[in-house]
């Protein structure tokens, strides 16, 4: 048999990865449709997740897309400038495999998958807004070049001050956000006025209110953790108001269901990105219910409703900057004690008995922070388990064994 030429081979690799990626998503979506707690109202989100490309998000939102990796760029500002903020997906094992060449062996699986997906379906016209969060994100433009996605990506950097409590950090961040506003205005060819900004803030406030209702439904057992995560995963595939409207239509259909008897837990750690739902599925299989989380791919996808007494453009931008910086619980910050407080506060509301912390191999900030979370949380009587994994399925049994034993430690403590 004649060997394919290299250009041809590249094409074949792409087609194979595309097929596998489609199969990964289709398999999860089909499994969700076959669940006992499936409701036709979920179709509004399943339909969104049938195409997770930035092109699809642009089409649905009716706006040009600006791509994001992290959660610190104020979405309201981007929307007010006429763009659709789109956090790229990175949950496909096949996509991660496609990006494998030219990258360090322990590259964060999420970014690896992002690179793979972008190789297949990125719109080069859409630029990036990247806060300097972890080392992987800082090196992302190099990774884009090395993995053959984009040679000269358009990136608007936001230099993220890592010490939230210092007053000069807040000022530096505000300067960064003000610079972002100017960048967006130049890109859009128009100023961001007070009225447009207020309208945009209102849109995201509606989304935050919808998310709050979803949170309550999960705590009360009307929405399973898996569906909660799925609904949140679809957030960037429609504009914020459209997503909120879909949630508002879903909420009346949610009725009380039988909860897993194994124990209520809080899910923390590295983001869990569609369609890589390995960990939430294993939690369910082990009989554990994740009634709350602090994942930046789920509950912490965007901040809560903005509150400010100053309705001027400066006042609104300052409030947005504070909300996306001071309120952020990402482990890249040096002073992040609020993360523990957040878990303990949520415990009062959601009554969970333990914390499951998932770390993606190569995700160093979450990995490091897991050790400093363990002791204080245990001291508060919470059972704690740290699970390190990647996107492959080969460690499922190992993880399940641990989760089953962890469930027993929760039962024993009752």
């Amino acid at each position, binding site marked *: 048999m004649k060997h394919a030429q290299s250009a041809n081979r590249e094409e074949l690799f792409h087609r194979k990865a595309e097929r596998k990626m489609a199969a990964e998503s289709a398999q999860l979506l089909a499994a969700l449709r076959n669940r006992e707690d499936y409701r036709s109202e979920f179709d509004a989100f399943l339909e969104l997740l049938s195409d997770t490309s930035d092109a699809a998000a642009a089409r649905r939102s009716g706006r040009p897309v600006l791509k994001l990796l992290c959660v610190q760029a104020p979405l309201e500002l981007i929307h007010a400038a006429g763009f659709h903020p789109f956090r790229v997906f990175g949950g496909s094992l096949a996509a991660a495999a496609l990006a494998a060449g030219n990258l360090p062996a322990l590259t964060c699986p999420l970014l690896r998958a992002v690179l793979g997906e972008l190789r297949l379906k990125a719109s080069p016209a859409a630029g990036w807004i990247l806060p300097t969060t972890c080392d992987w994100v800082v090196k992302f433009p190099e990774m884009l070049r090395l993995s053959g996605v984009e040679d000269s990506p358009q990136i608007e950097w936001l230099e993220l001050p890592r010490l939230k409590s210092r007053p000069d950090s807040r000022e530096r961040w505000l300067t960064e956000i003000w610079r972002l506003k100017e960048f967006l205005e130049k890109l859009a060819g128009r100023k961001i006025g007070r009225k447009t900004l207020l309208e945009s803030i209102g849109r995201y406030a509606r989304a935050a209110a919808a998310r709050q209702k979803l949170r309550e439904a999960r705590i009360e057992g009307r929405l399973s953790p898996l569906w909660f995560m799925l609904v949140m995963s679809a957030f960037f595939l429609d504009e914020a108001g459209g997503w909120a409207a879909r949630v508002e239509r879903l909420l009346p259909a949610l009725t009380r269901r039988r909860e897993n008897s194994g124990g209520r837990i809080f899910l923390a750690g590295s983001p869990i990105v569609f369609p890589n739902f390995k960990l939430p599925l294993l939690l369910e299989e082990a009989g554990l219910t994740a009634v709350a989380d602090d994942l930046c791919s789920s509950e912490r996808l965007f901040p809560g409703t903005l509150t400010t007494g100053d309705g001027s453009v400066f006042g609104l931008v300052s409030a947005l900057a504070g909300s996306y910086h001071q309120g952020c619980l990402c482990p890249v910050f040096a002073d992040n004690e609020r993360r523990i407080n957040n878990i303990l506060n949520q415990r009062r509301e959601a009554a969970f008995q333990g914390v499951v912390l998932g770390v993606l191999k190569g995700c160093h900030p979450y990995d490091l922070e897991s050790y400093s979370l363990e002791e204080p949380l245990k001291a508060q009587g919470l059972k704690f388990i740290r699970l*390190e994994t990647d996107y492959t399925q*080969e460690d499922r049994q*190992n993880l399940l*064994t*641990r989760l*089953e*034993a962890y*469930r*027993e430690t929760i039962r*024993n403590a009752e």
Partner: protein
Amino acid sequence: MKLKIGVDLGSTAIKTVIAQEGEVLWRGRTNTAPGQEEHALRLIGSGLRALGFAMDAVAGIAVTGYGKKLFADASVRVDEIGANAAGLFRLSGGAARTIINIGGQDLKVLRLDENGRVADFRMNDKCAAGTGRFFELAARLLDTPLGGFGTLSRRACQDLELNSTCVVFAESEMVSLLSRGTPREEIIAALHRSVARRAARLLWRDAPGPVWLDGGPARNAGLVEALEDQLMTEIRVLEEPQHTVAYGATLALAE
């Protein structure tokens, strides 16, 4: 009093215990192979025959281990970490508080409360370093039966190091040492130290001693010595350390 049967469907071996009133009457073991339930039932059959009982004398079968879902007729399925804790606690006369279990493809450390329940545990990730599989690989490579590892390692006098984080790297190192003419006993002693380091990394610094070691590799006296040296505490091993998990499963069956 009826019999209670515990089956541990592990990754490398199926272990079975038949007990009555908490006392072990019979133990059996066979290698894991496709058709695990059939192999386990055959093992149970030979145990009952050896004891002179029939199936109607059995109160129930408790199943644990990686393959526990493959055994359709289980009276109860038990998580293997809980079964390990319960079994060793009872067999140690309630003395065990810290356990290291080396299974076919995992390494676990357990901390028990005063009632023998799991208070905390840790487990290796998916690499086979520090597990029973690591020993099997070494036995093949060194062409030495596992039963001889303990005696051979006592003859070692060097202080060689082997990789303790990756079984593939450790295998390459062993091949390289063999090709340089390094005596087998030195490689085996290095292997024991490597596994002991791996276990020590998992164990809590404040884990109460003595530490109880179980799982198949616990029968290896060389490994026990390496662990004592690494952990600076006494290591205790029961007579049949491979069957504690299966025995622990029987304790989950109602009277």
